[in-house]
């Protein structure tokens, strides 16, 4: 199913593991699905100049970001044989070890979900105006760069 209007992909704070479990449970009534593939982005406690990152604070150009998420979604449904797709991204503070990105695709066939999930995640990293401020334990910060 594709939605015609951009919906809000952002969630305030970290994405809870229970929420992910419940999302999986909701798909068990869809018996045409044979394969799910889930990507989770987790905040790493990278050490920079001896100081570990304790959290990332995410901000976004929200309207443009939701439009881009929508475009990525539509393009993925166009390219791949998908039954469902869900994307959630955090805004605000997400601590090291917590989850900041949850992408969930489902299809009758496994080959489709592998291709689709990698496509969607790479598109999100490249196309969506979200900005991560990496905060150290001493309250200094640096701006996250995607590689």
């Amino acid at each position, binding site marked *: 199913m594709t939605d015609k209007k951009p919906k809000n992909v952002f969630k305030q704070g970290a994405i809870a593991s229970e929420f992910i479990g419940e999302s999986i449970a909701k798909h068990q009534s869809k018996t045409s699905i044979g394969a799910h593939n889930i990507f989770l982005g987790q905040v790493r406690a990278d050490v920079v100049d001896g100081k570990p990152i304790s959290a990332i604070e*995410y901000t976004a150009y929200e309207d443009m970001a939701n439009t881009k998420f929508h475009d990525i979604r539509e393009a993925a449904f166009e390219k791949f044989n998908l039954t469902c797709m869900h994307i959630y991204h955090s805004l605000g503070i997400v601590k090291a070890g917590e989850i900041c990105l949850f992408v969930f695709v489902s299809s009758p066939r496994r080959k489709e979900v592998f291709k689709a999930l990698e496509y969607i995640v790479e598109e999100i990293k490249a196309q969506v105006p979200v900005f991560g401020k990496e905060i150290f334990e001493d309250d200094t910060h640096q701006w996250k760069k*995607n590689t």
Partner: protein
Amino acid sequence: MNINIKYFGLLAEVTQQEAETINFEGKLVSELLDVLQSKYPALKNKDFKVAQNQELVSINTEITGQEIAILPPFSGG
């Protein structure tokens, strides 16, 4: 004309604000950037993209929109 400019991430730090309205009499994105870089010299050394009406545009694009966003490198996920 009046243009609403939004700044994000590092660029909001550099300009010390998230949004402002400026009166702009030029035509191209490059001319607007000249104005902003005069106002905020630290912008000159930064890597950023410009979005007009939520689409990325090149510096040769004509300014038609009321909302321009100055965006540092994307780092979602």
